[in-house]
């Protein structure tokens, strides 16, 4: 039995272990980085899924910005009022009331109601369609192409392509803005959660052209504008817009629309 060998082995390993322990202990104290404890609390209060909807790199980025005073306490669209109140409490600042917004796809052109110029079998990505003849198989160049770039990008599984057009599930949408950023046709818009009547078309073409491309596109006839009592509807380049600050959700525009492109959500 080589006792000296055994003892040497034990001593060396124990010695190294001890040395490392002491060394790291000293290092962790010597190299401590000061962090404001409020930052930890704010990160706790935020939803924590790092969607980037606030415009900052993730929840820790927003916490950092709030601490520095660069971001308002109600900057998180996902957390809404509850989170704004909590962050306001931590920072000692009053939170302003936030209006809940959701995304809305301004297009109803699904497979039955819109016309296709040709059959397309290629990369299933909306942004790649810019390289394809006439920017995509759908006749209307302003509408949703339906290849699902928005669906892939949504972190909350709130937008899906149904029958060739993207549809947002209002309850799941947290208004983080990723689908807006990725849509190459800019067909998605942020609307207030409470908005009931929405123009579901983005086509800026003249009436006859729109009729050729799609059965339910806005032709810019202006009947909605004429019948709106609160002057909330405007028609601009053959497309209707609703101003939600003035809209009282009476629904007359939707009734009067001949193409049924103002929808009731």
């Amino acid at each position, binding site marked *: 039995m080589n006792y000296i060998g055994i003892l040497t082995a034990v001593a*060396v390993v124990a010695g190294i272990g001890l040395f490392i322990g002491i060394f790291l202990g000293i290092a962790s104290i010597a190299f401590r980085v000061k962090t404001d404890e409020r930052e930890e609390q704010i990160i706790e209060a935020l939803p924590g899924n790092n969607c980037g909807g606030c415009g900052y790199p993730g929840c820790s980025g927003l916490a950092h910005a709030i601490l520095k005073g660069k971001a308002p306490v109600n900057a998180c669209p996902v957390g809404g009022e509850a989170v704004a109140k909590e962050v306001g409490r931590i920072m000692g600042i009053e939170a302003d009331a936030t209006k809940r917004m959701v995304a809305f796809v301004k297009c109803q052109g699904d497979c039955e109601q819109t016309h296709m110029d040709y059959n397309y079998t290629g990369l299933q990505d909306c942004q790649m369609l810019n390289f394809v003849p006439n920017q995509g198989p759908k006749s209307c160049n302003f509408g949703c192409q339906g290849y699902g770039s928005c669906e892939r990008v949504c972190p909350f599984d709130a937008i899906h392509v149904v029958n060739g057009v993207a549809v947002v599930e209002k309850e799941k949408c947290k208004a983080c803005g990723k689908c807006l950023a990725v849509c190459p046709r800019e067909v998605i818009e942020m609307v207030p959660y409470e908005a009931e009547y929405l123009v579901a078309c983005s086509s800026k073409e003249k009436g006859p052209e729109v009729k050729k491309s799609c059965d339910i596109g806005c032709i810019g006839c202006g009947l909605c504008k004429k019948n709106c009592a609160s002057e909330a509807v405007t028609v601009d380049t053959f497309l209707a817009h609703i101003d939600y600050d003035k809209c009282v959700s009476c629904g007359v525009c939707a009734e009067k629309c001949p193409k049924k492109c103002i929808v009731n959500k």
Partner: protein
Amino acid sequence: MSDYIVQLIVIALGSSLVSNVVLSQFLGLCPFLGVSKSVKTAAGMGGAVIFVITLASLVAGLLYGFVLEPLGITFLKTIVFILVIAALVQFVELFLKKYMKSLYKALGVFLPLITTNCAVLGVAITNVNLEYDLLTSVVNGFATSVGFAIAIIILAGIREKIAFNDIPKPFQGMPIVLVTAGLMAIAFCGFAGLI
């Protein structure tokens, strides 16, 4: 002297290209498959790996030469190496966090991923098995990690390109990445006649 330098260059080429650490020796597969989704993260990972493996082979070589060999307890190399590597990475992370914030932001996150990585321990043990002296060990470590960085950046580039392709349903996700890695391995086999 010039013989020595030629030998160093040969070893460097061999470790980085011919017997590439991840495509030939299969060390370090976990981060290779996991961190290669975009070229930016792959570059960060590659940088961190180069840093850690070079430093680790230096420290391991020193420890082996001055402590383990003279005392005749070379059989303890596995335990001692892994302890020292883990401690080293921990220390480097603390150091970077305090004194080199930009470097920490760039590659600090990947450091714990490398601690229990096959590649670091594998390089240290290979240095011992092939009985390299200290400088050769460090050069070998550096070249190995450069080979890893090359492989992971190429894979990240390919993965970005095939992200939108129409891949058959069972092969989506990990299988197509493995097939890509296999094709890369075949390509790297072409280096076999280099030295």
